């Protein structure tokens, strides 16, 4: 138990504050950012390792509801990304052209394996929610 919480409980025990006030104070303490002693909160608390990328699509049309539920292991994504490093250098130019034609201005030769690892790591924070009311379609992309 931290010092602030102990003080609040002591004040409550001494009758200086009511139970409601103690509850509010404890809630305020929990909402406040944790004091940093050299390390940030994200470093202090270990992040939960996500294992899957999940894509959920729910659609409602004339023929009835359609749902798509896809769960892809992050390990497979990582392996797939590493497989991309096998693409020969000669093919990069053609791929760059094709990607830019489709609105993805990307230069594959500038993407290094460490960038891809970083990309996958940041994918863990990704959540995409699309709710198209006119099409009655909901799309959710998240990691779990």
């Amino acid at each position, binding site marked *: 138990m931290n010092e602030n919480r102990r003080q609040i409980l002591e004040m409550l025990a001494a009758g200086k504050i009511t139970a409601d006030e103690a509850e509010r104070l404890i809630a305020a303490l929990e909402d406040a950012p944790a004091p940093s002693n050299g390390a940030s909160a994200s470093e202090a608390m270990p992040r939960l390792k996500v294992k899957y990328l999940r894509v959920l699509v729910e659609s409602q049309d004339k023929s009835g*509801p359609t*749902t798509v539920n896809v769960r892809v292991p992050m390990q497979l994504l*990582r392996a797939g990304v590493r497989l991309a490093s096998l*693409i020969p250098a000669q093919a990069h130019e053609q791929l760059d052209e094709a990607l830019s034609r489709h609105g993805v201005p990307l230069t594959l030769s500038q993407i290094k394996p460490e960038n891809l690892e970083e990309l996958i790591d940041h994918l863990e924070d990704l959540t995409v929610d699309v709710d198209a009311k006119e099409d009655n379609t909901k799309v959710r992309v998240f990691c779990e």
Partner: protein
Amino acid sequence: MTPNFAVIGIQTPDFRMPRLWLPIFLLWIPVILLSPLIFLVLVAIAVAARTTIWRLIVLCWDVLGGLTGTHVQVSTQDSQVLVRIL
């Protein structure tokens, strides 16, 4: 860990298949028998991709191991397709 089973389920208005549990681990038998041929194919790919055979084997192993846990399910009002790799 490499996948051991694949679960496949298909259901349409006219056809309803019970969920099939396919023992993928049995594929190791033909893989071991065909390993010299597979090795030659991997060497050819490694040469074409200008990488080492060892790196290619590690990559293939990673992809194979990464398949475990894959789940794909598509359902409509009267049809359903399910593929799970365990």
